[in-house]
């Protein structure tokens, strides 16, 4: 793609906006009818009484929030909307021989207990209708998640249970693909980093999350560039009625959050939050002196700031700026004389900043248009042993336009465009990073580092369109996503382009009121990782990886909040980026292939009065073949069985207790056959078995429990919780440690439980 085509893409965005305007006019006519939605979350409200003042005319909105008043003589009328949860609202309309379309947004009633839902939707296969929502109370109180909404996703089907190793995964291992193969988004934009330090805590404070969508696979054409799953966080609007805040303290971090309107009856509102870990304060006080020299101590910050302007019910402008800063280093800078190396120094920093400016326009409940733009600045710096280092700097600006319109009661069209200009700078003196499936890894002590500095500029344009047809019991959704990318090195020595076209199709068949069959088929491309394209680490002209995915299943509603979702899937992986034979000119090519298949079951009790929970079982087989004609091997994080049972029960008005038991098959590893002594360095070089990933670590299982207690006061509340992971101290396998010549090995495991004690004041 060149700059001319970029300009053309921008033009298309404008066309979309104009199309939205036209669609608004098309729906301007209608009877004295309309739809009632919640002004904050824009979801339809059922059960609202709609009456005509001074008459006995009264109707109730249906499940879709719709109402229709009987015909009335010409004149002016006051239409009243009222419900127990929303402020009574009166709207005057004039009827003059024509029907009137009246859509209303209601605000929450003063003093009403409004549950701001945060939802995790296991929206597999079909985006629009396979949604399963977890209420905010579930997300914030799920045992084993430490009040971290994204950690709750780890308990859903399709996500591998890595035990303690999940803290280093850097993301979620979904349906047999690596954490880097899944997409993580916030308000539609790429989330540069999901967790602090690869897994400690989500970088976005859960307090800002309005909904959290999790797609294990078979996801809509709205999303792409990921072979695995998708996690999208949608942030909420700041409080616009009154000033409020949260002060939260746990045993490893603390945050403060404030929000509120910018003045009385203002259309402006905003808020901010900042969080900091304080492990670096505590550890030096509690660790013995002799351990300090080798102790790396992490500390992290994250922040979020939001400003919203809502001039009327149809327009919302929002700026959500967020960032994260992780640092780690040696507590003591004294070099230990007993160290095998002369320098044990270690330094790491990882930070990003990303503001997102968005405009959401909903002229009526049938149209939704969102335009957003977001720059990003991100850096990773990692230095070890004095001189080995790698540094990434990413500068990026992205714009996206998403448009959805209900063309008819049975037809919903969605389309969008994404434009992304991206600079990736890398500077390194480090050995080649190992690829998935390469057991040998890098030897920072002995291997010769690659010294280089390079920049890649990339421009990406993406367009998608998707149309859902509701035909009786059938729902059919064809979609198409097309993307193209142009890239070049800073010095112009390398340039090229890539493109991908991803057709996808989703179908649902509502067999009975309780049972729905569903299926999907689609192609999913994923562009190479930045470092895979930079010489000498990578190969400049490698192609995107591809997944051809098929899935099907059944959903069943047992009633009273009990539901079941069973699925099977097959995913063929082709053109995988793979290490070439030793001595080849280029380190990577696209000769790798793979396949993943499995089944997932989710039986759930949704939160009703007191109880919620679910049983999740995942069966998965994920295999790879790195070279043509080579042997098949298991994926590094292939997990055959993954079972999770989670339940939480509220006792009285202020107590809640919960537990989660998880069991997962041990992860594969490759045995070391022998080792060769390197007489130059006085070290041993392990020789791995040809049977890659044929051995398994010990199975993973643990029990987590959680207790919550709340105190209600006049103007504020105090919440406390104790969330203890691994209460019976089951050792969590991390891997194996070998003696100096690899003739002896012992499993390394994390021996202790992980308690989180939290106290939170809210007003």
């Amino acid at each position, binding site marked *: 793609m060149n700059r001319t085509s970029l300009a053309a893409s921008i033009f298309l965005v404008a066309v979309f906006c104009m199309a939205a305007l036209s669609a608004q006019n098309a729906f301007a006519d209608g009877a004295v009818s309309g739809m009632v939605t919640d002004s904050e979350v824009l979801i339809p409200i059922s059960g609202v009484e709609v009456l005509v003042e001074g008459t006995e005319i009264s109707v109730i909105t249906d499940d879709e929030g719709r109402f229709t008043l009987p015909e009335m003589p010409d004149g002016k009328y006051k239409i009243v909307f009222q419900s127990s949860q929303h402020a009574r609202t009166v709207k005057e309309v004039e009827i003059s021989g024509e029907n009137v379309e009246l859509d209303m947004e209601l605000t929450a009633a003063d003093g009403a207990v409004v549950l701001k839902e945060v939802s995790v939707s296991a929206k597999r296969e079909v985006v629009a209708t396979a949604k399963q929502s977890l209420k905010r109370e579930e997300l914030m109180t799920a045992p084993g998640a430490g009040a971290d909404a994204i950690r709750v996703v780890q308990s859903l089907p399709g996500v591998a249970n890595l035990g303690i190793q999940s803290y280093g995964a850097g993301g979620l291992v979904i349906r047999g693909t690596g954490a880097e193969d899944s997409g993580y988004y916030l308000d539609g934009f790429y989330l540069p980093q999901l967790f602090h330090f690869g897994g400690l805590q989500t970088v976005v404070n859960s307090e800002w999350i309005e909904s959290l969508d999790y797609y294990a696979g078979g996801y809509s054409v709205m999303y792409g560039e990921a072979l695995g799953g998708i996690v999208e966080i949608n942030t909420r609007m700041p409080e616009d009625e009154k000033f409020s805040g949260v002060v939260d303290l746990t045993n490893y971090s603390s945050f403060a959050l404030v929000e509120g309107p910018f003045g009385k009856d203002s259309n402006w509102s905003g808020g901010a939050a900042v969080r900091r870990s304080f492990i670096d304060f505590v550890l030096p006080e509690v660790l013995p002196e002799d351990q300090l020299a080798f102790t790396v101590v992490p500390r992290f910050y994250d922040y979020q700031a939001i400003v919203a302007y809502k001039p009327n019910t149809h327009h919302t402008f929002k700026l959500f700026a967020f960032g994260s800063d992780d640092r780690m280093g040696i507590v003591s800078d004294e070099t230990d004389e007993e160290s095998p190396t002369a320098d044990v120094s270690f330094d790491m920093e990882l930070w990003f900043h990303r503001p997102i400016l968005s405009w959401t326009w909903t002229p009526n409940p049938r149209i939704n248009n969102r335009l957003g733009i977001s720059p990003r600045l991100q850096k990773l710096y990692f230095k070890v042993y004095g001189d080995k280092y790698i540094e990434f700097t990413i500068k990026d600006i992205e714009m996206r336009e998403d448009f959805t319109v209900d063309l008819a009661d049975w037809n919903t069209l969605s389309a969008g465009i994404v434009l992304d200009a991206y600079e990736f700078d890398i500077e390194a003196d480090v050995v080649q990073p190992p690829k998935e499936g390469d057991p040998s890894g890098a*030897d920072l002590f002995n291997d010769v580092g690659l010294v280089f500095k390079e920049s890649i500029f990339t421009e990406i344009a993406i367009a998608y369109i998707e149309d859902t047809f509701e035909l009786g019991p059938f729902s059919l959704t064809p979609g198409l996503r097309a993307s193209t990318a142009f890239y070049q090195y800073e010095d112009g020595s390398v340039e090229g382009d890539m493109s991908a076209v991803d057709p996808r199709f989703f179908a649902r068949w509502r067999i009975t009121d309780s049972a729905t069959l569903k299926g999907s088929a689609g192609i999913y491309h994923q562009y190479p990782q930045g470092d895979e394209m930079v010489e000498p680490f990578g190969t400049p002209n490698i192609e995107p990886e591809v997944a051809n995915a098929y899935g099907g299943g059944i959903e069943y509603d047992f009633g009273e909040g009990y539901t079941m979702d069973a699925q099977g899937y097959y995913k063929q992986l082709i053109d995988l980026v793979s290490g070439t034979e030793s001595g080849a000119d280029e380190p990577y090519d696209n000769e790798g292939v793979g396949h993943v298949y499995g089944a997932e079951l989710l039986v759930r009790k949704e939160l009703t009065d007191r109880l919620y929970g679910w049983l999740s079982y995942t069966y998965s087989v994920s295999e790879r073949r790195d070279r043509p004609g080579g042997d098949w091997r298991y994926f590094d994080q292939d997990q055959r069985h993954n079972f999770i049972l989670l339940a939480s029960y509220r006792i009285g008005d202020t107590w809640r207790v919960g537990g989660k038991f998880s069991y997962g098959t041990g992860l594969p590893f490759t045995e070391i056959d022998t080792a060769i002594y390197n007489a130059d360095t006085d070290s041993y070089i392990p020789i791995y078995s040809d049977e890659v990933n044929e051995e398994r670590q010990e199975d993973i299982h643990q029990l987590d429990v959680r207790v919550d207690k709340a105190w209600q006061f006049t103007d504020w509340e105090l919440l406390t919780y104790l969330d203890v992971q691994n209460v019976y101290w089951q050792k969590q396998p991390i891997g194996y440690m070998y003696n100096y010549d690899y003739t002896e090995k012992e499993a390394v495991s994390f021996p202790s439980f992980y308690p989180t004690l939290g106290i939170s004041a809210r007003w």
Partner: protein
Amino acid sequence: MTAGLRTGATIAAAAIIAVMIFSISCDTPEFDPPNRIKSLRILAVKSEPREVSPGEEVIISGLAVNEDGTIYTGPIAWVLGSTGALTGAERSEASEEDVEGVMHIQMTEDDPFVYTMPTGGEFDEKFEEYNADGTVLTIGMGIGDLDNPIMSIKSLMVRDNTSFENPVFVGLDFLVEGRYVLPDEDGVFNVGNTEAVKVTANVDFPTGDEKTFHWFTATKGLKEFTVDKAIEWKLPKESGIYDIYCVARENTGTQFGDGDYNVKSAGVDWGAARIRVSETMDDVIWADGN
């Protein structure tokens, strides 16, 4: 939605970090330190000279020990080849075809691997295209069971202008209770019933200053992970004869003409000594004569 060119390395780095955290936090297994001899093993490989030019003769030798700490004197299989000289990863992937080159079976100490480096086209044919700035060959050493040999490798720098030399091991000095001792007529240092001795390596380094000293015994009591030229050795309580070895290395790397690589072809020499622990100090031969 687009991730652009996502940074999988970000995730990889996070994983490395997490592993480091957990490695530190976890209970790590207690293995014997590398300086304790428990099995048949190779302690050092040396080429003399350290760097060689085409047409020059090179003598290749090795230091290996038995599981009881005595010197291994059995047969040794030697290979001099061209492949896998630069990185550990490449070495681990070397196939049998790759390591064809020159072989030698050493049956006794008097039959070392002596080889005259070929010149011109013969070198190219035998190994690889010769680079006058530096061509790195690999020495392979194997001992023990032929089906499952104990193996070692070492780099050998071949170039026109050689500059680095091996260290020269002069000997080991033993300090008992603050006084030097001398060996007896069998070359054994009597240390009596003292609890510990201080052993110092006397080594000359003609070139380079990246010096390390690795110590080995079959007993417990050596300070772990030290690379110092002097070491304290806590002695066994049982009377007997014990061996100690010190391998001295000089690790200055070799810069190629184009500056791309910094090859560590270490200079090596070693020293060995025997001590006798006895119930009294009577047999100790003090260097100061008293």
